[in-house]
């Protein structure tokens, strides 16, 4: 084992331990804020793993997007819905937890066996490329052009939709209908009795 190999092995082991530990923390800890920060830890260790896999650009993107955007977004959401809330205990909850653990372990065993058994066809003598950025760019503008363009529509739509859903509406506009009959009985199930913002925090009973 030469030096480079040793460094790689050790960093792999460290990153893997960090990642698994943090991921377990994300799903097991009670405090959601700790979970969110540990999620950031998972993302960072994964980006380290990407470096080991010669994926410099994706590793940077992982940090920028997952840690910089998604994780911060999740933290914001936690702060926005931050009401100290003690979930009322549900009877026989441990059965479900045990079942879930059993399912996960079983799935791990199945997939693990599959990974170990499958003879992955590794081409010999083909060194991984180092100019990933150039090749990625060429992919985006040649054989992955169509998904690349469609992704822009997806992002636009997600943007518009997220704004519409998350926007708080203080008053119900009276000009709800551009047509006639603005004072319909409005007995539609979708129509609330009063705007939520005015009714305070009390959830409408239904």
């Amino acid at each position: 084992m030469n030096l480079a190999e040793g460094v790689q092995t050790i960093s792999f082991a460290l990153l893997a331990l960090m990642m698994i530990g943090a991921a377990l923390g994300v799903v097991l800890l009670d405090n959601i804020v700790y979970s969110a920060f540990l999620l950031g830890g998972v993302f960072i260790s994964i980006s380290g793993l990407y470096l080991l896999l010669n994926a410099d650009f994706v590793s940077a993107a992982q940090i920028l997007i997952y840690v910089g955007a998604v994780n911060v977004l999740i933290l914001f959401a936690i702060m926005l819905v931050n009401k100290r809330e003690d979930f009322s205990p549900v009877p026989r909850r441990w059965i479900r937890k045990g079942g879930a653990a059993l399912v996960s372990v079983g799935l791990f065993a199945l997939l693990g066996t599959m990974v170990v058994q499958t003879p992955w066809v590794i081409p010999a003598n083909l060194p991984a490329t180092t100019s990933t950025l150039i090749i990625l760019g060429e992919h985006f503008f040649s054989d992955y052009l169509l998904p690349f363009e469609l992704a822009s529509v997806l992002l636009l739509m997600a943007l518009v939709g997220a704004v519409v859903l998350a926007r708080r509406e203080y008053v119900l506009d009276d000009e709800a209908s551009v047509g006639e009959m603005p004072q319909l009985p409005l007995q539609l199930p979708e129509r609330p009795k009063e705007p939520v913002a005015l009714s305070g925090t009390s959830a409408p009973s239904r």
Partner: protein
Amino acid sequence: MDFANLASQLNAGAILPEGIVIITLLVVLIADLIVGRAADRWTPYVAIAGLLAAVGALYLGWNRLETVSFLGSFNSDNLSLVFRGIIALATVVTILMSIRYVEQTGSDLGEYLTILLSATLGAMFLSGSEELVMIFISLETLSIASYLMTGYMKRDLRSNEAALKYLLIGAASSAIFLYGSSLLYGLSGGSTSLAGIAAGIANSSQSLGVLISLVFVIAGISFKISAVPFHQWTPDVYEGAPTPVVAFLSVASKAAGFALAVRFMTIAFPSVSDQWQFIFTALAILSMILGNVVAIAQTSMKRMLAYSSIGQAGFVMIGFVIGTESGYASMLFYLLIYLFMNLGAFTCIILFSLRTGTDQISDYAGLYQKDPLLTLALSICLLSLGGIPPLAGFFGKLYLFWAGWQAGAYGLVILGLLTSVVSIYYYIRVVKMMVVKEPQEMSETIKNYPALSWKPFGMRPLQVGLILTLITTSLAGILSNPLFNLVNASVADVPLFEAAVPIRPAAPVSLQVPATPLSAVVPQSAPQAQTLNVNLRS
């Protein structure tokens, strides 16, 4: 690689219909942005015009010589054309029924149309995608748009809750689908095109890895077509989501799911065709039984239609699993018919709930006395869904079962017939309830039924949609010949099904550029790559 060369390689004309939809989407969005609410008067018609133009463009693309476009990402063959036509038409009818609904609930119409059009776009691209990344992106465009539309009535608890459940289950299922896709990428030795995957896994077809990825991919697809073990979201989402959205999901989203299933299974998994046919047979059996039996017990109209649509998906899967040419043709034919009859039923439900604000089945009692047109339309659509003879649904089922019988799937066909009888029971129950004679059996809602008026904004398009679906549902069965020729032609010309056993060559990749310089550069400047390579060899 110069530009003209690239443009000709892309064969961009194949996505002209989708281009029209994108332009329509942008026009609607920007008009809504600039003009404001006043634009609501005409943006729906712009959207409808754009979609009809897209259907026209689809028609022009019939029998295109060069179908593969964007270097193998997209295939605009006749099969995809029919699926895309179904999706675009479903969106047109959905818009017709949405206008009044969205207005009356006080939501924004412009954004609604934008999201609906992008869902359509995703579904249309999904019907022709032949490459994992493209499939993933179009699938997600469709899915995310569906989540957003489901939660669009954001002041309504049930809409919120349906959206949250749909999003969580949907995102989990797409993660599972992706895991299967990533395994396929590895098993095929680094190919993301479906044909390349088929070539890559041809030798190791019975291995555990291929089977697991097959199961994972089918799980992701079955979620979209809500086949039975993966159907749990359907009743909740159908009950909670705004009704026009439910109509869209039950037709367009499902059609896209079937298009994906056909393409993915026949191109990527010809070597394990026994296995996937077995899995889909099981899904079809479960869907037919559970969908139709549970629908009997429902009291809410939307929930009943949700379970009935699960059962209908089971019928459609018969045409898919038998794998013959006439099977695929009958499946397409049934989807075309199903488009009109199901959307017709939803138009009626929307009309009823706009006037009364309820969708309980018991509230429909005695509707015939007050609104004969609505009763007639709803009865015809429901009877057609059940498969009563002169209507379109009967011929759809006839072709499906006939194709299944010819292919020797006797058990499936008999089960289909039995569950059809069950389904007729709960459809007729609604019809019977509507036409009760005695005034004392009338429900309270019907006694207070408002006077008929088509005047308010958005009612005319609703009426147009109602009449259109009514006429098509009544006549499409008797005059089904042109439709049947269409679907036959669409599956006949496609090499897809002849190639269900042999494998097509992978799409040509035009990335020769990195090949030469890299091999020269790498050895000097890549210590890490080298060490990794050393590891590999040892």
